């Protein structure tokens, strides 16, 4: 479907639902295409192609709320039946006085900066050039070390386009593309067969970094040989930029209106208070050019804004959507994150390592969880022991355990090495006094 066809179809579905007894309606229609090539032992192991589409409709019927989706949107008769059944089912629910479409004043109304999240050349890329690229990634590894057991290289790309309309006047659309390369290398080291992955991704084909993907995966796998646990103890922890999102997630989850209203947050009633170390400053910036989380409006249609979330450890904003805003009697300010940008310190990863007398550099997490209500966490980790400012040996099969509130108070350094291939643009982070469990 073209964008115009999607709008026409979405509005038809919206008007149909309004005509059948729904008082408020939101309809989204999307389509997407993606492909994937996987190479192993110098031949194509997997070739996958996908095209999909879908329609989702949110209804408010006599103050009762429901949401429905289908990938059967071509046949209008079938869609009519789908919508009728959805409306009929909704009538059995309890009323929910807090469900309302957003205040139209808060909607995105067009214009704004060019965010460059869509590569118009997506369909013109020669399939053979994608395949050549994957083989080149594999070639960086094959035969380079006798300990290599297996190398899998892959290329993936995709584009999606969506429109959204609401019965109180919102209309918006967006298009996105992405491209990526990945290498996964397994090596033999004693009984274990350590594996490492490395990947690069981009929103534009021409910006996709192709070199060193395979080589980096190989280097990282080889460095893991001989990994094992060390004695338990309280130590300094550096978390590498790519993996730091794992520790950031529980902190951000504690800021959502749903978590606060449902008492599933350890940061209830903390606005304006110091909840983390002075080193923690995070800005939510929706307008970064080609940022992975860049967007002009959120999933409700609310116009996005640049905002300070943590200011030198002081909590400045929650993420409040329309529904939980009404439940909490707070102003909605968009219930989702866009790009989270840290204020950097002055050392890169090497500098951070050099500053540590004894500690662990965490390069990967292995399971674990964090309790939303209390902030208690425990995660499996692997990485490297640091002694006197240098990497000493690889470690694995260890846990870190503690509480999120204390962990972020113990944030001592923020690196300069921002990981840009994620909406959570984390640099490497250094924490003091972390409880490690090993032997």
């Amino acid at each position, binding site marked *: 479907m073209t964008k115009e066809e999607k709008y026409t179809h979405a509005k038809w579905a919206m008007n149909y639902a309004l005509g059948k007894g729904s008082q408020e309606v939101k309809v989204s229609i999307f389509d997407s295409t993606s492909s994937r090539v996987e190479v192993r032992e110098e031949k194509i*192991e997997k070739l996958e192609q996908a095209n999909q589409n879908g329609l989702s409709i949110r209804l408010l019927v006599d103050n009762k709320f429901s949401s429905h989706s289908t990938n*059967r949107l071509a046949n209008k008769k079938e869609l009519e039946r789908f919508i009728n059944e959805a409306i009929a089912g909704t009538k059995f*629910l309890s009323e929910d006085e807090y469900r309302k479409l957003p205040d139209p004043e808060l909607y995105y109304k067009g214009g704004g900066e060019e965010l460059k999240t869509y590569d118009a050349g997506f369909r013109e890329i020669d399939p053979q050039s994608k395949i050549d690229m994957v083989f080149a990634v594999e070639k960086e590894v094959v035969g380079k070390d006798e300990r290599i057991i297996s190398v899998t290289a892959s290329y993936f790309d995709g584009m999606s386009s969506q429109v959204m309309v609401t019965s109180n006047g919102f209309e918006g659309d967006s298009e996105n593309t992405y491209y990526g390369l990945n290498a996964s290398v397994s090596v033999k080291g004693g009984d274990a067969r*350590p594996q490492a992955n490395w990947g690069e991704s981009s929103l534009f084909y021409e910006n996709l970094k192709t070199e060193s993907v395979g080589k980096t995966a190989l280097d990282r796998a080889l460095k893991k040989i001989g990994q094992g646990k060390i004695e338990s103890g309280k130590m300094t922890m550096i978390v590498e930029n790519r993996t730091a999102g794992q520790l950031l997630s529980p902190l951000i989850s504690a800021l959502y209106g749903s978590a606060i209203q*449902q008492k599933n947050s350890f940061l209830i009633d903390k606005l304006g208070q110091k909840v983390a170390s002075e080193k923690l400053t995070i800005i939510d910036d929706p307008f970064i050019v080609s940022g992975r989380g860049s967007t002009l409006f959120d999933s409700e249609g609310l116009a996005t804004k640049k905002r300070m979330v943590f200011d030198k450890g002081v909590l400045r904003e929650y993420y409040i959507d329309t529904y939980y805003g009404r439940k909490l009697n707070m102003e909605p300010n968009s219930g989702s994150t866009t790009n989270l940008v840290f204020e950097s310190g002055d050392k890169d990863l090497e500098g951070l390592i050099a500053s540590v007398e004894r500690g662990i550099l965490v390069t990967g997490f292995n399971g674990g969880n964090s309790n939303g209500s209390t902030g208690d966490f425990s995660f499996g980790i*692997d990485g490297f022991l640091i002694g006197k400012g240098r990497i000493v040996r690889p470690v*694995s099969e260890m846990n870190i355990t503690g509480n999120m509130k204390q962990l972020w108070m113990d944030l001592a350094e923020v690196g300069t090495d921002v990981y840009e291939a994620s909406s959570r643009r984390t640099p490497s982070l250094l924490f003091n006094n972390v409880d490690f469990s090993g032997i």
Partner: protein
Amino acid sequence: MVLPPIMQSCSNIQISDDVKSYLDHFEVNASMLQKVIATAMSKGGDYADLFFEHNISNSLGLEDGKVNRAYSNIDYGVGIRVLKGDQTGFAYSESVAINDMINAARMAASIANNAGDFDSKETTEKIPADYYRISRKWEDVSVGEKVPYVQKINDNVFRLDEKVVKVNVSLNDETAYVLFYNSEGRLSYDYRPLVSFQVGCTMNRDGQIENSYTGRSFRKGFEWVTDELTDELAREAIDRTNILFDATKPRAGEMPVVMGAGGSGILLHEAIGHTFEADFNRKGTSIFSDKMGKKVAENFVNIIDDGTLLNNRGSINIDDEGNEVRKTYLVKDGILNSYIHDRISSNHYGIESTGNGRRQSFRYVPLPRMRSTYMEVGPHTREEIIENVNYGVYVDTFSNGQVQIGAGDFTFFVKSGYLIENGKLTQPIKDINIIGNGPRALADITMAASDYLIDNSTWMCGKGGQSVPVTCGLPTVLVKKLTVGGMNS
């Protein structure tokens, strides 16, 4: 493209009314299936299959005392796969119009690049097993019939304990129609119901907030939802939350871990199950890659992956490659007996598939996946096992786990359990991760009791970006040594 001559005679195929109803459901006929397969095989593939799926799911939710949200989703389409040795070409179509299927088949065919001759095989119907008999289909149950049970759980939880401040309940049902056809002429079908009830409970005791949850899931119909069930779930949610108020954290480090009967089967799933999946082993990337036929555990250890348990969440009547589902001994009398196979890996090893080829939906390729993974009874008693431990932990409620296939390091997150001090359960513990190494942990199972139990919580297994429903089970066992997340003095 030249179609094989068999096309003219396909109207003579004898098919049962059962399979006919599935062909009608997807508005296809045997001749269309053969035509799509012929296209898929036209470039010289060794094998091709078609997986039609129509999935209807519904969810009802309760928050702040009211059943005030409902969700539904319809997903429909056909996945077309072509194999050439270990190589896979895959595409799917959300339309079953012949031209759309042919286009997808052409794309999948391109994994092979010769001009191949393909002779259509005679169609043979594979009658699926019958592991989930139900009496009330979810499609026939209105929202109005489900609402009172969801409400009742909420009301029970609030009534049972005055510390309760929040309750969340969801009732999720799913129905999938599956039609399968492959280049060997095998035609099969399945009807897959799945239901889960989830209850979350948050309590406040003098300003201390704790929450926990419970759930159940089966391949059952609406007849499963009863007042007794809602009472049981409410009680369990209360008990699981109450225990957390006085819970502590153990000390950090290695110690004996007693795994309580039931959900502790997550140990098998993470420590052993994934690393036995034969796609990893055929590539040599699993820590168990060269251990077939070798002793890996004590003699009393028998570990099974089973797709045949009646109404179990992990059971399937046929796997997603049209193969018979089995009860497979992964470890028999302490010896590594079988990997977990799909078509590609079983061909690679030259054996029959164990019926573990599973996929999240028609949008994904099948992979070797677990079903219900459990361990049979051992020679000890639960009391003996606990008495055996001087300082350690007893764990029985879990939220999630993970494993690194090659390194063998696995973890599981303990929602609650107890300290063991001088052979007795003492203070409750909560929110700790436990980490170990698969082969070592398996060898370190030194005691096992006879209280074997399958846990019917809503277990979901993730691999390669795909989720499939599974279950697990275990008798009470002692693992001599694992690293427990905790505090350093």
